[in-house]
C-alpha cells in the first residue's frame, strides 16, 4: 500500500501544464463595480440604450441579493470591488483573416495545442476564440452565413441582431435568477451568440475556446444559443487558463433555447487552473447554465468534463416545457488536491411525455470535495414524465470527500422516476486482475477511470473526446486503486 501513497503523491504534485501569461497590451477598466463601470462597459461596446437599461436593472437587483451559501464549498469572501470588470486586448481594427491577428495571441493558442489555422483547415471547426472578454477571431463565418446561421460574438450580435438578442436574452436565466447571474447580466463583456434558422442542421461543430488572461479580471461570459424550429446544433466549449496565484472569479451565463423539433447539444471541457497542490490560487467558477425545450419534441443535451477550477459551482439545467421534449445531462467531474466541486443539474418537467436522463460520474482525489446536487421536479400537469438518474462517485485517497444531494419533487402520479447512486474506490480485486496481466498500476488506473467515465465521454464530439480522455489521464497520471 505504501507504493500507492507514493504514486498518489506523484499525481497530486503534478503541475498545471498550461500555465503561462501572454503579454498583450490590455485595455483595462478601473477596479470596482458601480453604475459608472456598467455605463463605461456599455459605451465601450457601442450598445443601444435598451441594453444599458437592461444591465442597470440587473445591477440594482444584484445589490439586494446575497451570495448563496448553501453549496458544499468553502472559500474566502470575494471582494467584488477588487475586480476589474472590463479588460480587452487593444485592437485597432476588425480582422478579416487570421494573419492579422496579434502574433502573441496566436502563439498562446499554439502553446495550448490548438493551432487555430490547423483547426480551421483540418478539423473543419469554426472557432470563435475569446481572449479575455472580446472576440479576436471568428472563423468560418461566411460559410455558416450561407445557411443563414448566425455565429458571432455577443457584442456583434447586440450591434447587428438587436431584436433577436433582446427577445431571448434573459428569457431562460432572468437577471433576478441568482446572485452570480445578476452580476453577469450587469457586467458581461462578451460571449458567443448562435442562431440556427428553421430546419437547418448546422454542418459543423461550433466551438469557442475561452481563456482568462488579464490579471485580476473576472471573466463574465454570456452565451445565447437559439435553435429555431426543426434545427440542430452542436456547440463546444473548452477552457484553459494561465497559472496565477490570485483567485480569479468567473461567472458565466449560458442560455439555450430549443424551439419545436429542435435539438441543441452543448459540450464543455473545463480545465482552468485548479490552484497548486496546497490549494493556493485557482479559478472560482460560478456558472449559470440553463436551457429550455420551448417547443414540442425538442431536445437539449448537456455534456461536461470538469477537471479544472479550484471551485466549481455549476448546474446546467433543462426546463422541459414542450410536450415530448427530452433533457439530458452527462457529467464527469474530477477533483484533486484542494479542489471543490458542487455540480449537478435540474430537470424541470412541465410538458407531457417529457423525458430526462442524468448520468453523473464524480472522481475525487487528494483533499478535494466533490458533490453532486440535482433536482428532478415533475409538475402536476407533466403526465407520463420519465426520469432516470445515476450518480456514481469514485474515491481515491482517504482525505477526499464525495457527496450526493439529489432532490426529487414529484407531483404527478404517472411520473416514473428512478435514482441510483454508488460510492466506492477502485476495487483491490480489479487492480490485482490488471497487475497480474502485466498492466502497471498507473495504466490500470487510467484504464479503469476511463472505463468508468466512458458513458459520459461517449457523448462528446470526436475532437473533444480525445482531449477529454487526455485530460483525465493527465489529471490522474500514475494514480492508484
Amino acid at each position, binding site marked *: 500500500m505504501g507504493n500507492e501513497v507514493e504514486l498518489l503523491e506523484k499525481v497530486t504534485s503534478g503541475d498545471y501544464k498550461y500555465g503561462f501569461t501572454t503579454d498583450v497590451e490590455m485595455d483595462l477598466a478601473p477596479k470596482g463595480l458601480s453604475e459608472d463601470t456598467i455605463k463605461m462597459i456599455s459605451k465601450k461596446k457601442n450598445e443601444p440604450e435598451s441594453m444599458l437599461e437592461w444591465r442597470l436593472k440587473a445591477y440594482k437587483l444584484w445589490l439586494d441579493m446575497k451570495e448563496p451559501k448553501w453549496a458544499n464549498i468553502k472559500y474566502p469572501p470575494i471582494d467584488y470591488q477588487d475586480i476589474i470588470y472590463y479588460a480587452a486586448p487593444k485592437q485597432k481594427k476588425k480582422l478579416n483573416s487570421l494573419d492579422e491577428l496579434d502574433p502573441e495571441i496566436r502563439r498562446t493558442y499554439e502553446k495550448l495545442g490548438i493551432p487555430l489555422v490547423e483547426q480551421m483547415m483540418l478539423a473543419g471547426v469554426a472557432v470563435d476564440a475569446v481572449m479575455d472578454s472580446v472576440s479576436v477571431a471568428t472563423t468560418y463565418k461566411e460559410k455558416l452565413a450561407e445557411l443563414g446561421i448566425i455565429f458571432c460574438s455577443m457584442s456583434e450580435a447586440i450591434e447587428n441582431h438587436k431584436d433577436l438578442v433582446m427577445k431571448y436574452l434573459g428569457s431562460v436565466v432572468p437577471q433576478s435568477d441568482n446572485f452570480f447571474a445578476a452580476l453577469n447580466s450587469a457586467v458581461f463583456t462578451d460571449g458567443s451568440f448562435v442562431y440556427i434558422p428553421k430546419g437547418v442542421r448546422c454542418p459543423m461543430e461550433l466551438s469557442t475556446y475561452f481563456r482568462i488572461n488579464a490579471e485580476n479580471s473576472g471573466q463574465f461570459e454570456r452565451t445565447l444559443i437559439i435553435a429555431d424550429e426543426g434545427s440542430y446544433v452542436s456547440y463546444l466549449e473548452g477552457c484553459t487558463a494561465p497559472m496565477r496565484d490570485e483567485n480569479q472569479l468567473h461567472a458565466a451565463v449560458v442560455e439555450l433555447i430549443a424551439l419545436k423539433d429542435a435539438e441543441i447539444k452543448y459540450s464543455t471541457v473545463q480545465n482552468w487552473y485548479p490552484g497548486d497542490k496546497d490549494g493556493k490560487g485557482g479559478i472560482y467558477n460560478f456558472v449559470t447554465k440553463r436551457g429550455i425545450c420551448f417547443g414540442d419534441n425538442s431536445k437539449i443535451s448537456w455534456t461536461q468534463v470538469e477537471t479544472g477550477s479550484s471551485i466549481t459551482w455549476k448546474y446546467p439545467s433543462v426546463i422541459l416545457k414542450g410536450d415530448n421534449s427530452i433533457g439530458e445531462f452527462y457529467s464527469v467531474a474530477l477533483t484533486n488536491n484542494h479542489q471543490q466541486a458542487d455540480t449537478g443539474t435540474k430537470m424541470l418537467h412541465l410538458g407531457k411525455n417529457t423525458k430526462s436522463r442524468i448520468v453523473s460520474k464524480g472522481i475525487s482525489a487528494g483533499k478535494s470535495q466533490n458533490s453532486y446536487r440535482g433536482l428532478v421536479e415533475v409538475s402536476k400537469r407533466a403526465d407520463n414524465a420519465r426520469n432516470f438518474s445515476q450518480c456514481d462517485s469514485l*474515491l481515491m485517497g482517504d482525505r477526499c470527500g464525495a457527496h*450526493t444531494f439529489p432532490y426529487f419533487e*414529484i407531483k404527478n402520479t404517472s411520473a*416514473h422516476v428512478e435514482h441510483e447512486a454508488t460510492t466506492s474506490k477502485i476495487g483491490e480485486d480489479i487492480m490485482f486482475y490488471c497487475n497480474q496481466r502485466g498492466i502497471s498500476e498507473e495504466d490500470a488506473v487510467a484504464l479503469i477511470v476511463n472505463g468508468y467515465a466512458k458513458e459520459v465521454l461517449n457523448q462528446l464530439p470526436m475532437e473533444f473526446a480525445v482531449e477529454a480522455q487526455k485530460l483525465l489521464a493527465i489529471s490522474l497520471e500514475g494514480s492508484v486503486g
Partner: protein
Amino acid sequence: MDKISTENIDLKIKLLEDFNNLEVNLNGESKNNIHKIRQDAIASFEELGFPVKKMEEWKYTNLKPVFKHDFKTVFEPAKTQLKRKDLEKYLVEGLKVNLLVFINGQFNEKLSSIVTRSEKIFIGSFSEGRISFNDVIEKHFSKYADYKNRSLTALNTAFAKDGAFIYLKKGVQVSEPVHILNIADASADSVMIQPRNLIVAEEGSDIKIIEDYYSLGDNHSFTNAVTEIYCAPNARLDRYKIQNDNDKAYHVGTTQVQQEQDSYFSDTTISWGGAITRNDLNAVFNGTNTECHFYGLYLLNGKQHVDNHTLADHKMPHCYSNELYKGIIDDKATGVFNGKIMVREDAQKTNAYQSNGNILLSEDATIYSKPQLEIFADDVKCSHGATTGQLNKEEMFYLRARGIGKDEARILLLNAFAGDVMDSVKIDELREKLREELSKKLIK
C-alpha cells in the same frame, strides 16, 4: 404571513412563561446537572425559535398550521376517565408485554403493568427512575439528543419531566417486549405534550420496544417527543415506532441513537395517521462493527403530511447500516423522505445502503425525496436508490386477467410493496396486527 408568525411567537412566549413557573416549583432540584441542562436548553430554544421553512432541514414541512391553535401546555397530575378495558384496542392481541401508559405525557401507573420483574431491569417512568437510578439518568440524559442546534429537541429537553425510562443491566435479556403507549387526550382542550424517553441497554443486553402514539378527542394535539437510546457494546435493541394519531394531531418525534462497538439496533417507523408528522431518526456509530437497520412505511391519504428524516452517522470503521423506506401516497397527501448517510474521515470499510420507494395513487399526491450521501473516507461501499412511480400496469393486468377484481388486485400489489418493511417486524403478533391495519387502510 405576519399574522401567523405572531401566533407562532405567542406559543413561544407561553412556553417560556411555563418554564419560569416550572422553575419556581422545582424545590431543591435547582442544584443538579439536569437542571443546568434544562436551563441551557430553554436558552437555546429562546434563541432558535420554532423551525421555519427557510431552513434546509424543514424545506418541505411547514409547521405554521400547528401554531394556529391555542394549546394547553401544563397538566395536573394524571387524571383520566380511561379504564383498562378502553385500552384493549390499542394493545397487541395475544402478546405479553410490559405496558407503560402515558396520558398527555404523564405516566399512569394504574393502567400500566409490568410483567418482567428483576433487579437488573428497570421499566417505568422517568420520575420514578430518578429515585433508584439517578446516576444512570445523569450519565445519559441529554447526552445524545442535540438541544444546542435543534430547537424542538431543546424545547423538549427544557420541559423533560416524564416519559419512559428503561434500563437494562449487563447481560440481561428481556423476552417480553416493552410497550410504551402514548395517548394524547384532546377531548377538553387542545394539548401540547412533550414526552421524553430514555432507553439504556448495557453490555450484552437484549430488548424489543414498541412505542406507539394515539390521540383522542375533537381538539388538536401537538406532540413533541424525544427518545434517546444508548446501546452499549454487544447490546441488541429492536424498536417499533407506530404513529396512529387522528387527523387532528401534529407529531414531531426525534429519536437519537448511540451505538457502541458490536451493538445492533433496528428501527421500524410506521406512520398511519396524523395531520402533520415529522420523524427524525439519527443513529451515531461510536464503536466499530455496529449494525443498524432503519425501516419505514408511510401510508397517507386525505391532506396528511409525513416527513421522515434519517441520519446514519458512520464515525467509526467497519460499521454496517441499511435503510429501507416505502411510501404509498393517496389523495392530496404529501410525503417527504430525507435520508442521509454520513461517512466520516476515519470510517473505513463502511457498508451503507439506502433505498426509498414511493407509489403515488392520486393526481394530487406529492412526494419529495432527498437521499443523500456524504462521504469522507475512501474504502467504503455506499449506495442509495430512490424510485417513484405508480402501480405497475403489467402486474395489474396479470392479476386482472386471472379474474381478480380491480380493488382486490390493487390491495394485493400494495400489500406486496409494503411487505419487506412489514417483514422487519420481528414480533409475530405485532406484525399480524400491522398487516391487518394496512389491509384495512388500503380498502377505499
